[in-house]
């Protein structure tokens, strides 16, 4: 079976080992949670898979068979662009936005017979995604007038706009308060249901809610956690279910060990 991505190797920072030799293989589909404390190289692994600069010396091989989208703790919103323009940033940066886009959005482009199918039109796609993350009334707001949770919603809509089969999430909810975090987990589980997701997190509760597969990264290396019970399709596990809380406690023990 083809893997979505695979990272085999080890890394050093300034001559000091960052992580021991690991073999991180991402199967197609589902959420893989890479759980571990800060400073063990989780984000570095994700950045290596994404093909980004890491500032570490990496020795090994990285293969990736799917196009990728990225969402990180810093939502990376562009302050001078409004929500719609931020969601369509990828199209702007690839030069695939029509020059008349700015005057057209968010009307959804031409309507009626002969109109382009909605999926082909960036304006209507952006409008639909902004609606999906519940920010329709904010479509023309700039990031500085949004709350932290709303900014991550914009980042999620932007990630979905990219429409890539592999999505890399680098602690995307870490800076949010507990309630907003839980809501974002629910929303992300729903909207990213059909994609292969690698979620880097230091939060055992998050891994317990979202992981179809949980990998524990510690200084000693990468260990695969026993497969958790199946997750409802397109949803996170309930945050208050006893088995989820038990899994969270187990993961915490694993991290402390």
């Amino acid at each position: 079976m083809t893997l979505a991505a695979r990272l085999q190797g080890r890394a050093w920072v300034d001559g000091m080992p960052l992580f021991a030799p690991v073999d991180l293989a991402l199967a197609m589909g589902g959420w893989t949670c890479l759980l571990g404390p800060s400073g063990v190289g989780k984000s570095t692994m994700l950045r290596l898979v994404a093909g980004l600069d890491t500032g570490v010396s990496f020795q090994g091989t990285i293969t990736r068979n799917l196009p990728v989208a990225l969402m990180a703790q810093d939502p990376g919103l562009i302050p001078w662009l409004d929500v719609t323009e931020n969601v369509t940033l990828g199209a702007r940066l690839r030069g695939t936005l029509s020059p008349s886009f700015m005057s057209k959005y968010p009307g959804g482009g031409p309507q009626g017979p002969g109109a382009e199918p909605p999926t082909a039109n960036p304006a209507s796609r952006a409008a639909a995604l902004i609606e999906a993350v519940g920010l329709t009334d904010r479509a023309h707001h700039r990031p500085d007038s949004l709350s932290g949770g709303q900014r991550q919603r914009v980042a999620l809509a932007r990630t979905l706009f990219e429409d890539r089969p592999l999505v890399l999430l680098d602690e995307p909810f870490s800076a949010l308060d507990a309630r907003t975090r839980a809501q974002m987990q629910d929303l992300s589980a729903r909207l990213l249901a059909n994609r292969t997701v690698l979620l880097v997190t230091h939060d055992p509760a998050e891994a317990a809610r979202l992981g179809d597969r949980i990998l524990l990264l510690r200084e000693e290396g990468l260990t695969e956690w026993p497969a958790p019970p199946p997750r409802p399709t397109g949803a996170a596990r309930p945050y208050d279910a006893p088995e989820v809380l038990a899994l969270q406690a187990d993961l915490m023990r694993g991290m402390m060990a």
Partner: protein
Amino acid sequence: MKTVLALILTVLALWQGLIWLAGMPPFLLPAPAAVAEALWLNRIEIARNAGFTLTEVVLGFTLGSVIGAALAVAMGFSARLTGILRPILTFSQTIPVFALAPILTLWLGFGMAPKIAMTVLIVFFPVAAAFLDGLGRTPQAALDLAQVMGASRGRIMRHLRIPAALPHLATGLRLAAVYAPIGAVIGEWVGGARGLGALMIHANGRMKTDLVFAALLVLSVMTVIFARLVSVALSRIWRRYGV
């Protein structure tokens, strides 16, 4: 506004007081009234020369800003080019413009060209330095996204790095607007019959110190207004882009 007015009045009073107390002759330090009189009597000549200087300043500032910004963008694209150009640019700033003025006059003649060249030399550096600094400060999160999204270097420059660096560019431009008249005046000073600098040199040679002061006053006011206009224009433009 009130404090500015009070400040001006205080300076004028001290100035006049100094003349009364020390009994300074007018060719050393003319009284405020004498300067005002020289300003009024020579208003046509001063206005004409101020016009030349202003033209040189505006042209030199515009050209210098464009050159400075273009240099910054080019250097922003290439670390290698930055490595080559940065020491050259820094070196260019160690040469006193005053020493260059006679050479530029020799090369470019007695017309406006050497004055504009002097202004360009003074203007381009703060613009390039500030803008380049800004181009290197795009938030890493945005650059990471752009890379994963498959953006070309040119589009990253156009859509992310340049807009993010506009406040830095504005800082450089504001600074350059204040310095620009220095270049023009030094150029006029060294070689030229027109402009406030030339007027000052000639008046100084004929001991018409009151006229020197009048021209200086006009130059200062002109510089303040020019710098203010540039600053206001930049704020307006940036606000439209929401930077």
